């Protein structure tokens, strides 16, 4: 007996990967996946009448911070947010949760699914804390998850580069990804965090500055890791948080980073924070350099970006970029946490408030919007707020309205600090996103950039992660409360209400590598780590409901 069919009938379907742009179509689901329409005579066991509604694949957030030690510390550092913030009450079928800028695990899952997002990836987990991230994922309902593992300041990695041993570097990266059950490599301020650990207020100013002890440069780290990860055939080769985040004049560092990839595929994250002109520490000359950087992106198809949009309001900055946390603490005062993860990475956490009357904050907001509007190919720019750094993921509907309604965008632009107009080109852009383009930058594009072949589209074989919206003139209203959200074929949001609690799966990769490297790594652990080598890797049975995504190794 065949498994039951579920039919979503007659909606306006947006499926850019398969060239469907608002046509009325039926979608058939069986066993959690999208299947071809059955032969005539077979009827659906259940039909959802989507006539008049907009049907899209489930959203994919490729850069957020939702699990792991820094997220948990962000929650613990700000109990006042938990006390004052909205509470998600328990129901017979769902767990309770709390919001604030760093929601609890359950609230995170519920709010994502409530927005129509069905997958989310944490962007910065130290390898030593990977176990914690997996445990939090196991408590984050409704969505599929994965994380990027930090390696831009890993000592073994820098040693391999310093010794000009690319074979060892490649094997180590593959081993580390498999050992931590991670999805992709992440570089955060490559080399800069290590300099921060060596010097008071230390950091690198350029990507050609020497990193202490290992005598390597950020450029070498970027180039060599990009080469190795592309050769490993990872679905998402390298996710880069450039050096000098947030500093006036950092656009040249960003441009050099793009160049340092040497044509290899790479994703530059929260690019908004890396697009600033101006002199060192000078607010007078602070300006947008989005046009120049977007031109580079438009002409180099090995590169993709997500934006890291700033939205006005209070939030919590959390980053693996230790010196950045210190910088923010010096600027804004208040609480600050700095963590050194031995041999591997750092972490900085500080509360922050983005104000629309602040020139710097308003310009950051405008630069983010410029990125969406100046990258010509929507498949190469992805919606993100770097949750919670630029703002909450719950602000995505507001961003969609800003992109789809130029009149509204210009109204908001006129309400922020008046000097913003002269320091960026946002006021000169009249481009408005279409629903199809919104579908690309929120689900089809990030799924493709992540190499997830069964996400972000509604073709046969795709996961049945589907979001159904009621059309509305105000696109913020339309996107903030989907009518239905279907996850793996199950209706979780029904008539705008969460009806059941499921737990998604975790994506990870395990590229093949030369096992001889393990002896070198074990020796390294024996000498320097506080953790035994044999206790370090996360076993298969530790990860709940995981899915291994294939790698396709290329010849070096």
């Amino acid at each position, binding site marked *: 007996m065949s498994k039951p069919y579920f039919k979503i009938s007659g909606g306006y379907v947006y499926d850019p990967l398969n060239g469907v742009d608002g046509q009325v179509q039926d979608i058939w689901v069986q066993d959690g996946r999208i299947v071809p329409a059955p032969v005539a005579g077979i009827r659906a066991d259940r039909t959802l009448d989507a006539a008049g509604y907009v049907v899209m694949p489930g959203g994919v957030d490729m850069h957020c911070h939702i699990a792991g030690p820094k997220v948990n510390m962000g929650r613990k550092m700000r*109990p*006042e947010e*938990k*006390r*004052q913030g909205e509470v998600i009450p*328990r129901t*017979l079928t769902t767990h309770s949760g709390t919001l604030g800028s760093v929601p609890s695990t359950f609230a995170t899952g519920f709010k994502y699914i409530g927005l129509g997002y069905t997958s989310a990836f944490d962007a910065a987990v130290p390898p030593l804390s990977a176990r914690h991230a997996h445990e939090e994922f196991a408590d984050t309902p409704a969505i599929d998850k994965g994380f990027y593992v930090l390696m831009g300041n890993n000592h073994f990695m820098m040693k391999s580069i310093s010794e000009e041993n690319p074979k060892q570097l490649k094997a180590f990266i593959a081993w580390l990804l498999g050992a931590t059950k991670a999805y992709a490599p992440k570089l955060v301020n490559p080399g800069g965090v290590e300099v921060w650990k060596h010097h008071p207020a230390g950091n690198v100013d350029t990507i050609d500055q020497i990193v202490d002890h290992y005598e390597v440069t950020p450029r070498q780290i970027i180039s060599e890791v990009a080469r190795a990860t592309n050769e490993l055939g990872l679905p998402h080769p390298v996710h880069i948080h450039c050096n000098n985040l947030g500093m006036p004049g950092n656009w040249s560092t960003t441009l050099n980073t793009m160049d340092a990839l040497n044509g290899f595929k790479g994703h530059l994250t929260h690019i908004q924070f890396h697009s600033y002109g101006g002199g060192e520490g000078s607010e007078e000359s602070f300006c947008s350099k989005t046009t120049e950087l977007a031109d580079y992106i438009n002409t180099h198809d090995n590169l993709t970006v997500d934006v890291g949009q700033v939205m006005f309001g209070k939030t919590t900055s959390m980053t693996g970029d230790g010196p950045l946390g210190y910088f923010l603490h010096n600027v804004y005062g208040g609480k600050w946490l700095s963590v050194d993860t031995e041999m591997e990475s750092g972490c900085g956490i500080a509360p922050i408030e983005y104000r629309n009357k602040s020139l710097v904050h308003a310009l950051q907001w405008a630069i983010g919007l410029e990125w969406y509007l100046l990258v010509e190919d929507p498949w190469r720019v992805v919606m993100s707020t770097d949750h919670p750094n630029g703002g909450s993921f719950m602000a995505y509907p507001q961003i969609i309205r800003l992109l789809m309604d130029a009149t509204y965008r210009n109204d908001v632009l006129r309400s922020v600090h008046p000097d913003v107009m002269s320091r960026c080109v946002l006021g000169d852009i009249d481009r408005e996103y279409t629903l199809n383009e919104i579908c690309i930058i929120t689900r089809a594009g990030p799924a493709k950039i992540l190499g997830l072949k069964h996400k972000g589209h509604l073709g046969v074989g795709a996961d049945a992660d589907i979001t159904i919206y009621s059309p509305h003139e105000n696109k913020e209203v339309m996107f903030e409360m989907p009518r239905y959200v279907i996850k793996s074929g199950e209706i979780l949001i029904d008539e705008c209400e969460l009806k059941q609690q499921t737990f998604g799966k975790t994506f990870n990769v395990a590229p093949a590598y030369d096992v001889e490297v393990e002896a070198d790594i074990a020796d390294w652990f024996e000498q320097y780590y506080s953790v035994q080598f044999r206790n370090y890797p996360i076993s298969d049975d530790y990860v709940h409901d995981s899915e291994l995504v294939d790698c396709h190794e290329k010849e070096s």
Partner: protein
Amino acid sequence: MTLELEYIGDTTIPVELQGVTPCRLRDLSLSEIEGMEIYHGKEIVSLADFFKISGDLSDEQMRLSGDLSGVHWIGSKMESGSIAIRGNCGRHLGSEMTSGTITVQGSASDWVGAEMRGGLIYIKGDAGHQVGAGYRGSSTGMNRGTILVHGDVGNELGLTMRRGLIAVGGKAGDLIGFNMRAGTIMLFGASGIRHGAAMRRGSIVFMGADHPPLLPSFKYSCRYQPEFMQLLLRNLQNLGFPVPTSVVDSTYDLHHGDMIDGGRGEVLLRVS
């Protein structure tokens, strides 16, 4: 007439009475009161599923009886009237209440009068931790009102307290008046350690014979006989709190602290 609620529940899962207060029930019929929704764990049930209910609230008085140690949030956010509890009760008794009176013949669990803004809570037995405290993340705890406990209490008595009076007849645990902003705490029994840590203002008065060790960030000021203490103790006597008449005219050693947070708080140790 009094509204009688006799507990008939038989469960180890918490029962929560949020919203079951005289002011909220005053205008409801008996059947409407019986149908009020309360939580039993994560399930929403009717009040009548756990209580046998009789009488009415014409004089805004409620009386609860039975073993209520697993029943929480009794009198929380209460605005007027009185609640009398014949046995023991659970956590969060009278939390965030603004007015009215709650009396407990037995003992109460943690968070008694947490963040209360007015009214009187009178417990004849013991109370748990965080009496009159602020919840985690709150900048102020109890802010007006009176809590009287005849017996012992746990740790963090008056945590982040802002205003009001707490008097405890028995022993207390550690960290009395931790992060205290103002108000008055009086303790007649023995206690633990680290009292007044990070207090900014307010008074913590130790009436017992055994003085607790004070933090090094408290500084001796003087020995004196403050008149306000006589007024305060007589007020407690008038409220029915067991204050020996012999201690009303006592002399005290005054210490100021916490010096790491301004040093405007005071700790009084009764010496004779």
